[in-house]
């Protein structure tokens, strides 16, 4: 009996000892190991797609960046209170609308962390280009650089002073991180680069992207998307020559075309012919917080009220005015009504006409076409008479172009940026007011000692 027991015991112990140790090697079923994941072309391509994904939503489906905040924050911050009202109960958005942003504002914090999350995604792609099949390597690199340039542009214009506000060579922009993160060390404590350093990186990435990208690339970025964003960057820098050249390149060389009916520009399930670059939202993936906040139906919260002050800016008969829906004594933007799969327009061709018009006008040039023709192109699509035939216009002037731009691009994320570069004011605040620059998020200041003393003025 004793022997039987000891035999049993020894057998059991040996079994558990030897067999189970191997069982501790449990591998994840839904994740891949960082060390080996980017060793083949297909995975690098998938990682690139992952960067697009985060520009609209987290993997859990919460809206990020273009999924909402980058666009509605620009309009909430840049809007006068008699044009746009945040009537919702959420505080973070209200604080931006009030132009009194605490450093721990969670939406402002999330824009920062999500933008750098996307940057890390494309940095991973750029670091692994060697394994990408040669046939697609240029495209993969071009898209990655396009996204990186785009993210740094959004970051620097929200978190740094505008190019035309003081000296960009000494004003602080955002930290430039150009390599992927594989571990957490002291080296991750990076300090802010200057505004001009960040702009230089943006131009370098976008210029490369423009060269590398094909002229057609499905709903991913193509060479014209790079040019379109470049035109914005040049405009922000007051480089009107280049702004005109890039915008004209999109208009003249690409297959993009204005949608004939203004109403059809919005809320389509697929990209329209004038979407130079748009973020895809499907019922399975992506998020559209703009619908949630601007719209009061189909699950929308109706948090953003369009007020008389804005509606009064339109002429009678303007198709863009007709797009607004009356909801009680306020109006709702009709641009964001598709709750299921409405794509998010990042650059529309219409913007290129208005950019070219403004840049040509400021430079006194006619790259591509005259400013008058470009403005009228937009006006006529909105069912308005061309300017030259109207007695109310003596002649086309800059104000008219900017006015047209404001109406055409309203509630698509342009207010604060156009306001700053044109040196306007909002709610009594001048374009260079500290309140109109986002604070560096408190969590970032706490987590990164290199940012000590680098908080923005006024915070």
């Amino acid at each position, binding site marked *: *009996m004793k022997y039987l*027991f000891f035999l*049993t*015991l020894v057998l*059991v*112990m040996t079994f*558990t*000892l030897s067999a*189970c*140790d191997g*069982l*501790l090697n*449990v591998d*994840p*079923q*839904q*994740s*891949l*190991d*960082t060390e080996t994941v980017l060793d083949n072309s297909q995975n690098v391509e*998938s*990682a*690139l*797609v*992952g960067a697009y*994904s*985060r520009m609209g939503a987290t*993997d859990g489906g919460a809206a990020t960046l273009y999924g909402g905040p980058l666009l509605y924050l620009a309009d909430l911050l840049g809007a006068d209170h008699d044009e746009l009202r945040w009537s919702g*109960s959420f505080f973070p958005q209200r604080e931006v609308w009030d132009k*009194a942003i605490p450093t721990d504002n969670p939406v402002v914090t999330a824009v920062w*962390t999500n933008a*750098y*999350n996307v940057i*890390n995604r494309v*940095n991973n792609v750029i670091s692994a280009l060697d394994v990408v099949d040669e046939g697609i390597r240029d495209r993969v690199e071009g898209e990655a650089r396009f996204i990186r340039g785009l993210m740094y542009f959004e970051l620097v214009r929200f978190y740094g002073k505008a190019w035309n506000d003081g000296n960009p060579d000494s004003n602080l922009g955002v930290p430039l*991180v150009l390599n*992927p*993160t*594989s*571990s*957490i060390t002291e080296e*991750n*404590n*990076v300090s802010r680069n200057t505004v001009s350093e960040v702009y230089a990186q943006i131009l370098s990435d976008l210029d490369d992207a423009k060269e590398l990208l094909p002229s057609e690339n499905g709903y991913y970025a193509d060479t014209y998307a790079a040019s379109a964003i470049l035109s914005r960057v040049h405009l922000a820098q007051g480089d009107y020559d280049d702004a005109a050249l890039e915008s004209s390149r999109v208009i003249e060389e690409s297959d993009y075309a204005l949608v004939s009916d203004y109403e059809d520009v919005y809320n389509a399930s697929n990209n329209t012919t004038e979407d130079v670059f748009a973020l895809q939202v*499907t*019922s*399975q*993936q992506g998020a559209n917080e703009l*619908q949630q906040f601007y719209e009061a*139906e*189909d*699950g*929308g919260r109706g948090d953003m009220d369009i007020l008389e002050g804005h509606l009064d800016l339109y002429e009678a008969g303007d198709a863009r005015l007709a797009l607004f829906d009356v909801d*009680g*004594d306020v109006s709702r933007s009709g641009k964001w009504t598709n709750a299921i799969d409405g794509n998010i327009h990042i650059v529309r061709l219409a913007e290129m006409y208005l950019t070219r018009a403004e840049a040509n006008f400021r430079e006194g040039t006619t790259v591509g076409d005259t400013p008058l023709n470009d403005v009228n192109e937009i006006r006529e699509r909105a069912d308005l008479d061309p300017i030259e035939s109207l007695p109310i216009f003596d002649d086309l002037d800059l104000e008219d172009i900017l006015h047209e731009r404001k109406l055409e691009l309203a509630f698509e994320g342009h207010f604060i940026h156009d306001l700053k570069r044109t040196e306007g004011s909002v709610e009594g605040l001048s374009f260079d007011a500290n309140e109109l620059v986002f604070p560096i*998020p408190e*969590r*970032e200041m706490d*987590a*990164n000692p290199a940012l000590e003393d680098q908080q923005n003025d006024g915070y």
Partner: protein
Amino acid sequence: MIKKLLSVVFFILVMLPINVLAQNGSISGKVTDASNDEELVGATVYIPELERGASTNIDGEYHIDNLPSGTYELSVTYVGYGSYNVNVSVANVNLVQNIQLTSDFADLDELVVVGFGTQIKQDLTGNIARISGESIEGVRVPSFESAIQGRAAGVHIASGSGKLGQGIKMRIRGSASVTAGNEPLYVIDGMPVTSQSQSGTNSITNPLADLNFNDVTSIDILKDASAAAIYGSRASNGVVLITTKRGEEGRTEFSYNTQAGFSTPTRTMDWLNAEQYTKLILEAADNTDKIIGGTGQRDYVESRFNALSNGTDWRNHEVDADWAGAAFKDAMTLYHEFSASGGNESTQFYASGSFDDQEGIVIGNDFQRLSTRLNLDHTATERISLGLNFNLARSELTRVSDDNGFATPLQLVAQMPISPITNPATGELNDNTLYYNGLLHDEHADFTQTAFRNFGNAYANINLTDNLAFRSEIGADLLNQNEDERYGLGTAGGMSGFNNGLGASRWVQVVNYTTNNFATYNQVFQNVHDFEMIGGTSFQYSTRNTAYVEGENFPVDDLRTIASAAEISDGNTTGSDFAFLSYFSRANYKFQDKYLLSASGRVDGSSRFGADERYGFFPAASAGWILSEEEFLRNNDVISFLKLRASYGLTGNAEINNFGSRGLFGVTSYAGSPAINPSQVANPGLKWERTAQVDVGMDFGFFGDRINGELDFYMKNTSDLLLNVNVPGTSGFTTYLDNIGDMENKGVELAINTNNLVGELMWSTNFNISANRNEVTNLNDQVITGQFENRAVEGEAIGVFYLREYAGVDPDNGDALYYLNEMDDDGNITSGDETTNDINAASRVVAGSPHPELIGGLSNNFSYKGFDLNLLFQFVYGNDVYRAAGRFQSSNGSFLDNQTVDQLDRWQEPGDVTDVPQARYRMGNGAGDSSRYLTDGSYLRLKHINFGYTLPAGLTNAISLQRARVFVSGVNLLTFTNYEGHDPEVATDFATGNLDLGNDYFTAPQARTLTLGVNIDF
């Protein structure tokens, strides 16, 4: 008990042949107290073999006649005294057998369940709180954690709300981690079970509600390191050992228990009526207009009133709807249980079946559980025994939205009282309200969570020699849970993206396999060296899979399954595993019954850690000295028992993500294309979080143990905290898991049991009180934030409320004021009492703590003749609760939400002295997060009352019943508190992190339940 069983077995075996030949006789005698010879009235004298017995009369005398000749065991029991067994030989005459009983108050010879074995309580050197299953019978709550609230020192249990089936927090000697789990390890009959919420929403539900706790015979809570270290890497938060009932040899005893009753909210809140509401909000709009000019605010508010009063005359308060009341319903509760237990000498069983039907006090919330259990023990040979425990349960929880959803019933309080609940024109529920009308959800949406649970395990025990035994256990805990959601057309508009109805089905399967194999060696050398040793291995493998599918576009509401959805809008499956491999050993040594030594060690390996740090070693040692066995205390008149004990040990915490140490890419998608993305940054050096705990304690008994108890001091130091460390967002990550930081819990626990009256009127008291102080001692200078205002900061308890400090109202202008609290670099406040009306100018300070300074319970038990009464008071003292919804509910009209009545005390004209600022619509005057909404959460509660009457034995025997008892049972009948919200025992269900403590956000109050019940044994 074992001894008793064996002696019964022995005598039956030996005496059986004699019985057959015997003739009748009788037995009589007197039962007295051994210490003072007083007669004991009502003692039970019983012959188990014959199922015959008698009670002693007023003179302490008993008489049993008409007994067949033979030798029997006579068993004498009396409350408060140790049971007494004697063998008597009955012949053809009357046998006089006088019996002396010794008072036995402390149950020191009671067996306590320890890890991988049992131990006599007197010999324990660790700290274990034991709660008998009997003491929680009849407590009508969904799961046993609520039932043991207030019954064990140092164990803080709080259920988040009165929603049934919700997760419950149990903290044994405080919180031991910031990022990793803080809940104890739950072990049922030797098998670690799944206790983590499997809910698909943020709100946590409780898988332990699948256990019918009337099947439980004892709950032993291992608190100190000496007791818990045998569970090694998972013992930092304590271990809860649950032992289920087993059969005993003898006749089959049947038992039927039933209870029926109803529940109501413990507390409700008072809200403005239509007249008060319109007056306050219009005043608020006018005040804002005065400040910014024009009449815009009044115009806007009136337009909203016009729109949302649905054509009724709000100016004359035509509608005055009780939205708050609509959140609650009449809740019935019903319970049936049938059990049988018994067996012969070789095989014993316990079998039970129960049905529990509890309706929630909140609309749309109900809980049902059907549970069956069979526990079998079989002695195969003299040396081999084996057995099986098998529990099958189905529980169905009807759920409501999380607390932060407009659809959750408690958010109905925010609706305007001028909005009718039903649309007068159509008679249908009103869908034109300020916020989504949650009643539409009650009518058109279903959310049912069904769990199928099987706890099963088998064991074999081989007694190889008289001293050496080997035990092998294998078991599985299977949990299959389905969450079925269906949102009908009527709910469209309430949630984003609904398109003609939405349905979702989520399945979770968690399978836990465990096997324990260990040997126990017992030997007494030279009569004074008592030696026990165990050693063995344990292996656990857990696998968890989920499947989810969601569909939209249903033709009609009645079609519930997703087969009817025109569009499948979402779907996924997931899977994840973990494994633990452990080797453990423990040795107990006792010398001369007074010196006790114990040492244990466990080596744990886990798949969760990096290959370099996969194994951890967790040793513990303890010693005890029973002074009362020493000459100088033996036979002392006052001190009947005194033991000093001390322990020290290491335990660990591994409750982190399954792959927390690895650098990972996750999977995502974009526009229909699959995609991958960096999801976690690697930390190959990630290791166990370790807790070193010292415990010094004493067990005492006075006056023949009539007063007895335990006193413990402990200090728990947790180091290498598994911490989600904030990293610069510029890295592309926001946090990573690292071993950084230290935390400390220290405290004192006292439990006292007294037998105040013995005899016919019996009165005993159990009192426990404990204090725990938690301090986060090192976080590498980080500040970690919870979802609300809780933070973990160095030098403070985990989860303290970090808030701007409300300074009341400026009597001159009605502005809300805040203390500036400007601080120098050392954190000293330099601005004195200076205040500001700009909330952003005020600095945040530690304004309160969610942790109670003291917790405890006081239980009084009375019995007189057939009556028994148990009253349990439970208290929590010195904690704060943050009423996070206060900024909407009590914001002096800053929004259109209905307000609590105390807002009528708002400032109105210069000179008004009040705490409620001037009403200013939309201006947030005082409505920011601040200590204005932080209130004392202390409470004293009549947690449980049980009052019963057992019918006289004569009456019940006449109808062939062993026992019949009727009783009234109540839960939470009285609550004493100054809390301003619903109920101070609160934790909102959608914020469930370790830091998210003590927040009330439209959270349902606890239920107050009163039931009438019957126990019948036959």
